């Protein structure tokens, strides 16, 4: 509750008109960004706890033969600079997972954009089925001014379909053997095989 209250207070401060685009000095914007980042970091602890509880609960429910304690703690991290195509984990990992949590009360379809390096990637869903994905270049200013601290040149786009209300879906993304990127779209065909049996 104290973490959430901290976030609420920060959001309250950001109701001030100086937090609106084009009306504030940049030093003020930096300060707002700093306050928001601290609030997010505080709430990240809550979200990790929630997700770990859900994931652990699901793992236990799925594995009837599983009789041990679920002791793996996933390191769920936010990437707060995704809006400028910047994410340390997706750029620097050979393999990573993306967990999409839907806070709305209806299911959602969202195209996820993940900043990545110039390579081929495969996106697998939880059913052991490749998810169709596409690489597109990150837009960059023509004047080549560096406006972000990132080496990502591309974004990997895929559809997180039918994420249940107040639920989540996870995707496993792995770097594949390198092929030259020609920006003809890379298509990972969806398998004709039926999904592996999963108890829901």
């Amino acid at each position, binding site marked *: 509750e104290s973490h959430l209250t901290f976030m609420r207070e920060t959001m309250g401060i950001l109701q001030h008109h100086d937090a609106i685009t084009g009306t504030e000095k940049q030093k003020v914007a930096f300060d707002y960004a700093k306050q928001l980042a601290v609030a997010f970091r505080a709430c990240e602890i809550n979200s990790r706890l929630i997700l770990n509880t859900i994931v652990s609960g699901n793992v236990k429910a799925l594995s009837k033969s599983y009789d041990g304690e679920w002791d793996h703690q996933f390191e769920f991290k936010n990437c707060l600079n995704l809006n400028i195509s910047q994410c340390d984990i997706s750029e620097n990992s050979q393999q990573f997972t993306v967990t999409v949590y839907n806070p709305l009360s209806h299911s959602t379809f969202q195209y996820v954009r993940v900043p990545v390096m110039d390579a081929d990637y495969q996106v697998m869903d939880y059913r052991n089925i490749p998810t169709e994905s596409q690489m*597109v270049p990150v837009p960059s200013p*023509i004047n080549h001014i560096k406006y972000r601290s990132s080496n990502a040149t591309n974004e990997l786009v895929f*559809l997180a379909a039918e994420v249940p209300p107040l639920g989540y879906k996870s995707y496993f993304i792995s770097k594949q053997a390198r092929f030259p990127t020609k920006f003809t779209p890379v298509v990972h065909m969806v398998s004709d095989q039926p999904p592996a049996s999963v108890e829901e």
Partner: protein
Amino acid sequence: NDPITIGNKYINITIDNNGLLSSVSSNGITTPVSQKFFYYDAAIGNNMAFVNRSSGAYIFRPNNTIHLIAEKASIHIFRGPAVDEIHQIFNDWISQVIRVYKNENHIEFEWMIGPIPIDDGVGKEIVTRFDSDIKSNGVFFTDSNGREEIRRKRNERDTWTPNLLEKVAGNYYPLTAKIAIEDQKTRMAVLVDRAQGGSSLKDGSIEIMIHRRLLHDDAFGVEEALNETAFGSGLIVRGQHYLVLGPPTGGIPSTKAQERFLQMEKLLPNWLFFSNADQWSYSEWR
């Protein structure tokens, strides 16, 4: 040199041979829609006189003349199974991606503006403008809290008769989620990804202010002009607008319902969590 179309089964857009948006087909309606970037010169005032201050951090006060930034854009097109994208380059400091996802019924515009040049000694306020043939009759709709849509009428106020001396600034309103215009046949809405200012300064038109670089203080206390050099060369902004077009009434879901769903998904988006899995095999993770 031929017009180019991208889209999906719900929505299609056409790019003319200048590389600019020329029409949108959506929800059974095809409407000529153009989208271009413009700028206003920031007004230079006399800060000693309260009614004539310069455009600054507190006051959006552009001169009334608008300047078109580029008549053409060079484009690159990327088509794929998830999204079609057109990357437009207008000049050294303005570029944009227009994208249509395969299962979405809206158009996404991701613009990148800056650093705004000030070599000519003039402060500038940059706007994006969507022009259509919608006969909006001076009426447009804005929200100011993400919930209630408020009817605005150009050059008018609900409870008195104004004599607007600043025809641009006097018709600008805050947008928290969207701005829309409509006639009996067509409704066009643009959703924003952050609070911005917007207006409809002529029938069929929607404009939204997206970046400013000013050279004079407005004497409201900051005592500095909004001329940022934090990164050595002025700020670059990047953001998104989402365009929804369809009939004003009817349809399942209706155009307004589509806007509402889209607003929910953009302003309350899914939370993305990333985990390094270098130590995991897929089967272990699964």
